[in-house]
C-alpha cells in the first residue's frame, strides 16, 4: 500500500489524527457512498471507521499503511453492517461478462457525480467496491486485493464485470433518457 503522509513521532497524537482525517475523510466518504448509496450511511460509515482508528489505530506499527488500514476497516464495517451470509463465488477473468457496450463519453459528461454513484449503486454488490476503488483512488490491483482481502484474480474479474455492468446501465439509462429526460435520478 502506498504511503500518503507520514505518521511518526507520537503516532496517535491529535495532530496525527487531524492529518489523517484531513487526508482521507473525503476519499473514504466517496468510497462509503459508492457502497451504501446514501449520504447518511456513508457519513456513519466514515465516522465509524475513524472511531475504530481512534481506538485501535495504535496497533498499526507501520504508519505508512494507515490509508490501506482505513479502507479495509471501512469495507469490513460495511460488510458487517450488511451481515452477508452469501460468500460470493470466485470468478475467473475469462468468465467475466462478454458483452461490453460502447458508451458515448458525452453521456457520462452530462451526468453529475451523484448520478454516477446512483448508477454504481445498481451494479452487483460484490463488484461495487473494487470498481469504486479502481476509479476513486486509482488504487493498484495489489492494493485493492489487500483492502478487500480477496485474491488478485478475483479483483480483476470483479472489476471487469463491474465495469461491464456499469456500461450496460449507462447505455440502458441513455435510452431511457431519450424517452424521458427525468429517467436518471
Amino acid at each position: 500500500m502506498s504511503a500518503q503522509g507520514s505518521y511518526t513521532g507520537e503516532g496517535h497524537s491529535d495532530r496525527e489524527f487531524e492529518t489523517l482525517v484531513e487526508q482521507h475523510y473525503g476519499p473514504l466518504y466517496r468510497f462509503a457512498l459508492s457502497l451504501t448509496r446514501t449520504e447518511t450511511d456513508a457519513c456513519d460509515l466514515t465516522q465509524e471507521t475513524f472511531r475504530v482508528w481512534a481506538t485501535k489505530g495504535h496497533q498499526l506499527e507501520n504508519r505508512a499503511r494507515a490509508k490501506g488500514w482505513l479502507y479495509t476497516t471501512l469495507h469490513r464495517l460495511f460488510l458487517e453492517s450488511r451481515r452477508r451470509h452469501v460468500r460470493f463465488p470466485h470468478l475467473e477473468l475469462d468468465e467475466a461478462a462478454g458483452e461490453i457496450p460502447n458508451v458515448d463519453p458525452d453521456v457520462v459528461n452530462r451526468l453529475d457525480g451523484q448520478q454516477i454513484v446512483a448508477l454504481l449503486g445498481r451494479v452487483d454488490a460484490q463488484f461495487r467496491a473494487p470498481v469504486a476503488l479502481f476509479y476513486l483512488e486509482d488504487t493498484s490491483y495489489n492494493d485493492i486485493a489487500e483492502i478487500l482481502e480477496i485474491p488478485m484474480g478475483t479483483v480483476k474479474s470483479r472489476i471487469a464485470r463491474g465495469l461491464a455492468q456499469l456500461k450496460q446501465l449507462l447505455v440502458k439509462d441513455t435510452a431511457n433518457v431519450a424517452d424521458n429526460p427525468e429517467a436518471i435520478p
Partner: protein
Amino acid sequence: MTMPEAKQILLLHRPWLGEAPDAETSEALALAGRDQELGRWWANHLACQQALRAKLRELPAPARLKESILADRKVIRPAFWQRPPVWLAAAAACVLLIGIAAVMLQPRAPDRFADFRSRMVRSALRQYSMDIVTNDMQRVRQFMAARGAPADYALPGGLERLSLTGGAALKWRSAPVAMVCFDRGDKEMLYLFVMDRTAVKDAPPAAPQVEKVNKLVTVSWSEGDRAYVLAGPEEADFPRKYLSPPNSHL
C-alpha cells in the same frame, strides 16, 4: 487473441497511471492499433473511463463530516497504555508504579448508554439482515446463546403479542448484543436490543425512559443484569403499547 478477449484485457488497463502494459495488454493494444473497430472501442472506452473517474472524484464530502469525526475523537481517546511504543518506552521507568497502580485502579469506565442506543438505532435504520429468520422465540434464544449474546431477556408483554421475525447477534464495542425483530403488523418493524448492563457506565433505570433517536422512538430500561432498548417508528402510546405487563410500571 480475439476481439472480446482484447476488450476484457483493455478494460483493466489504466494508461493514465503510467503503468507499463504487460505482454498480454501490449498484444491487446497492438490489436487495437490494427483493428479499426477495436481501436474505436478503445478510444471511446478511455474517454468514458476518464469522465467517470473525474465525476466520481469531484463528489464533495458533507461539510459537517470532518468536524463530526474530529469531535468524535475528543470523546474517544486511547488509554495511555494503548499509545504507541514511544509512550511505552517513556512509561517503562514507571513499570513498578504502574504494577502497583493497576491493582489499585478501578477498571476503565465503561461506555455511555446513549452511545449504545444511538448505535443500535443506526443499525436498525441502515439496511441490515437478520442472522436468523424465524417466528419461534425459543430458536432465537438458542441462537443468541450459541453466539454468546444475551439469550435470557425478559420479553415485555406487548411484544409477545407481535409476530417475531428473527434476530441477529451484534457487537457493540466488544459487548455482545441480541437484536430481536418484530413485525408490528403494518410492514413496520420493532427492534429489541439487549445487552449486559455492565457494558455501560450509566445503564437506564428500571422505569422505561422514552427518547427519540434519529427517526425512531426508543424506550430504554434495565431489568436484572440486562439493559434493554426497544426502537421503532413513532406512534402514539409507543411505550404503553409494548411495555404492558410484565413491565407495568408505565
